[in-house]
């Protein structure tokens, strides 16, 4: 399989990991896994949650969660046979010859110690260097990873740097001992797209420089395409396919890999038939958290957001974390009263606070929350969850309610026998369907879906999306689809709204959105979405402007994107509020002239 000339840095043959439960039964987590990684290459382990990808990666460090048994014919890293090491020898290997980069840097760092003390810890623990040389080494790595002010960043605490920076700091910690093998466990999954690009870029080049072999665990094929040389596809603890990146992406052997590939590239849905009447109109809404003084909240989040949505249409709300997407959902539902502006349902003006809306008005706007795990009461059965809105809004009871529950289960394609189950006995996809069915029970006019698919695996998420799409067409429900996933939102929605730092920067139909005319922030967002193409990151690196990170927007009146904008006009953007420009139904809030918006500043600049 691999070129014989290269020496193999990591070799795994017939790896089984079995969990022995106290009851005496054996649960096989992974079975019969074999692969090899040549020195200096990056191998990606791809699979959905529960496929065993993290378990395999951790086994290479001789570690198993929940005390499972690791058995293999060969589990070798360099000249180390991990499976033959004793418990007392393993700590001398971990962090020194094999290091690990975890998914969530925020929870992997000790918040009460400085970054420097934690980054050099592996060197000190293994007695590889004294403090002074260790710190010099760390500073060199910080600059290699393009961290701002590498000389002084070490004296900060983990909460004083951004999420993307912290992830790079963790990479520095992993690379500082010059390990033979680096294990990266979903290092960019928790990051925003624009940050992800930077982190991917720097980690990739740092890996190249250090010459380490790497195992990259991820569920995201497009991300993996940028960094990996080989891909191993896993399903339910079994090896599904193993091959070079190009082969897996363009000519996969297994059906499962093909289904993963199709799920990554969402199918464009046709536009809904245009119904002329607006179901929901949001006008100049401001909202925020904290004490309200003189009509303004202490921590303003949303400012001057306006849009409307037609019956049966889908509006995508996109933006990075902290842009106010979920706050917008809460404001429309009335959970967080808007401090100013108006929300109209049809022709009626809704009270800002939920408590003053009528039950009928509440019924017509329903929210589906992101985390189905916490959105379903763990002590209620599916039946209780679904019958409550029926009783509450329609006074339905007994046989009538049961018939409607059956109908809802059919609608969301859930099996009938789950009605007695509680949420802990449902799969992730089923939970989200129950969550959706509960909202549909109210027969709403407006359905707000807040990141409903981001906690789900790609294939399951695609199925849930299909379902929502069909429902809104069949039942004529106006859908507000909140997402950080631009490609999904673009495929799924008729109109798209881009939020940045709580302000609307662009509102456009799907066609206009796909055109060249874009707000500079929209352009940055769209271009940051990785494509299923191995050369994508390299092309981006050539074009990308120098480090663009952090949420700007300190001023109330100026453009929120000013501090990150690569094409800000000096003397104009930093003195005047950006004008609202409208053409062919597309709204862009920017100082640049309409005809300039269609020019990609980065391409022409280079």
């Amino acid at each position, binding site marked *: 399989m691999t070129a014989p000339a290269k020496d193999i840095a990591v070799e795994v043959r017939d790896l089984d990991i079995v969990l022995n439960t106290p009851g005496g039964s054996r649960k096989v987590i992974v079975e019969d896994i074999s692969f090899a990684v040549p020195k200096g290459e990056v191998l990606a382990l791809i699979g959905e949650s529960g496929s065993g990808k993290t378990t395999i990666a951790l086994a290479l460090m001789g570690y198993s969660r929940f005390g499972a048994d690791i058995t293999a014919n060969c589990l070798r890293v360099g000249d180390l046979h991990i499976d033959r090491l004793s418990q007392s020898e393993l700590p001398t290997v971990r962090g020194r010859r094999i290091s690990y980069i975890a998914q969530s840097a925020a929870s992997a760092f000790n918040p009460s110690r400085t970054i420097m003390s934690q980054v050099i810890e592996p060197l000190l623990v293994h007695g590889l260097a004294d403090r002074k040389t260790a710190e010099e080494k760390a500073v060199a790595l910080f600059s290699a990873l393009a961290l701002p002010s590498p000389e002084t960043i070490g004296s900060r605490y983990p909460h004083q740097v951004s999420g993307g920076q912290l992830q790079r700091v963790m990479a520095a910690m992993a690379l500082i001992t010059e390990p033979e093998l680096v294990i990266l466990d979903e290092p960019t999954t928790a990051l925003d797209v624009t940050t992800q690009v930077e982190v991917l870029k720097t980690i990739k080049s740092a890996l190249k420089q250090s010459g380490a072999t790497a195992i990259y665990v991820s569920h995201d094929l497009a991300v993996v395409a940028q960094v990996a040389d080989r891909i191993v596809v896993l399903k339910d603890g079994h090896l599904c396919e193993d091959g070079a990146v190009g082969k897996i992406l363009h000519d996969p052997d297994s059906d499962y890999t093909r289904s993963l590939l199709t799920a990554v590239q969402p199918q464009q849905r046709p536009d809904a038939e245009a119904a002329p009447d607006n179901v929901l109109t949001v006008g100049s809404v401001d909202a925020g958290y904290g004490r309200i003084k003189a009509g303004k909240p202490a921590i303003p989040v949303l400012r001057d957001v306006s849009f409307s949505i037609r019956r049966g249409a889908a509006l995508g709300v996109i933006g990075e974390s902290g842009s106010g997407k979920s706050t917008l959902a809460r404001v429309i*539902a*009335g*959970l967080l009263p808007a401090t100013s502006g108006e929300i109209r349902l049809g022709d009626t003006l809704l009270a800002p606070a*939920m408590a003053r*809306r009528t*039950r009928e008005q*509440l019924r017509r706007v*329903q*929210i589906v*929350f*992101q*985390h189905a795990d*916490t*959105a*379903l*009461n*763990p*002590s*209620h059965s599916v039946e209780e969850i679904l019958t*409550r*809105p029926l009783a*509450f*809004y329609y006074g339905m009871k007994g046989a009538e309610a049961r018939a409607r529950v059956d109908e809802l289960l059919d609608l969301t394609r859930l099996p009938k026998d789950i009605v007695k189950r509680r949420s802990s006995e449902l799969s992730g996809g089923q939970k989200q369907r129950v969550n959706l069915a*509960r909202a549909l029970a*109210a027969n709403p006019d407006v359905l707000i879906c807040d990141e409903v698919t981001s906690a789900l695996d790609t294939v399951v998420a695609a199925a849930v999306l299909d379902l929502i799409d069909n429902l809104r067409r069949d039942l004529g429900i106006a859908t507000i689809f909140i997402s950080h996933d631009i490609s999904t939102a673009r495929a799924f929605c008729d109109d798209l709204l881009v939020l940045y730092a709580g302000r609307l920067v662009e509102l456009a139909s799907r066609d206009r959105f796909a055109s060249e005319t874009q707000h500079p922030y929209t352009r940055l967002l769209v271009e940051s979405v990785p494509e299923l193409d191995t050369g994508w990151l390299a092309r981006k690196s050539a074009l990308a402007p120098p480090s663009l990170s952090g949420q700007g927007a300190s001023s109330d009146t100026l453009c929120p994107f000013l501090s990150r904008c690569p094409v800000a006009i000096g003397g104009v953007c930093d003195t005047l509020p950006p004008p609202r420009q409208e053409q062919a139904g597309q709204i862009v809030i920017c100082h640049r002239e309409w005809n300039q918006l269609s020019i990609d500043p980065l391409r022409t600049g280079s």
Partner: protein
Amino acid sequence: MTSRLYSFVRALSASGRVGLGFVTFWLLIAIFAPIIAPYSIGEFVDRTVFSGWSNAYWLGTDFLGRDVLSRLMWGARYTVLLALGAAILAVTIGTSLALFAAIRGGWIDEVLSRIMDTLISMPSKILALVLVAAFGSSLTLLLAIAAFTYVPGNFRIARALAMNLIALDFVQVARARGEGTAYIAWREVLPNMIHPLLADMGLRFVFIVLLLSGLSFLGLGVQPPYADLGSLVRENVSGLTEGALAIIAPAIAIATLTVGANLLIDALKPGGKA
């Protein structure tokens, strides 16, 4: 039902089963005392005081020549039922107020929490002493005092539990639907905190047993000829030098009841899926 009970007992640790044994034992005695006690509570049965055990009087006689076994059974009845009643009352009031405060939030929460803080800051035994001294002892008053003393502690715990739960999305969903405070408290929040609350009620029960025994020992508890376990210890204290069963038996009863209840509570796992 039987199988659930069986699996519940199976899931308990060894010490938990010991605790369950003691608690069940005393609970049965408390319930059936009027039927199984050989004599009535104030009956003088013998001229000998502090007699040792015999076939007629299994635990001997007390300082007035009454049957200790009968008085112990009646005493356990008073102590257990009074403490159980007070514990249930305290938890019901404390939890209801806590749910109301947590769900309403704002100034309601603020006012209720500060009132509870004020009550917590008063030493409960002294407060109980003052109240009993002022109003004279009666069963109703004892029940009320014992319950009142432990409301603030339960309020604190229940409020903390409820605060964690109402931050979860399913409560937001219920709110967005337009549900009222009562539905959210009763149907959404309470079922998810019932297990830690039961454990808390067990602890309160133990505290109340000790409080009542303490009051009775000072002569402020259940009044003669009736007696709870604490007053049994007090009235027979002169028998201590002779090592009379009349004082040892009720002391052991208090110890086994409280230790047993504690063992049982400890064995109930946090989260409660025992």
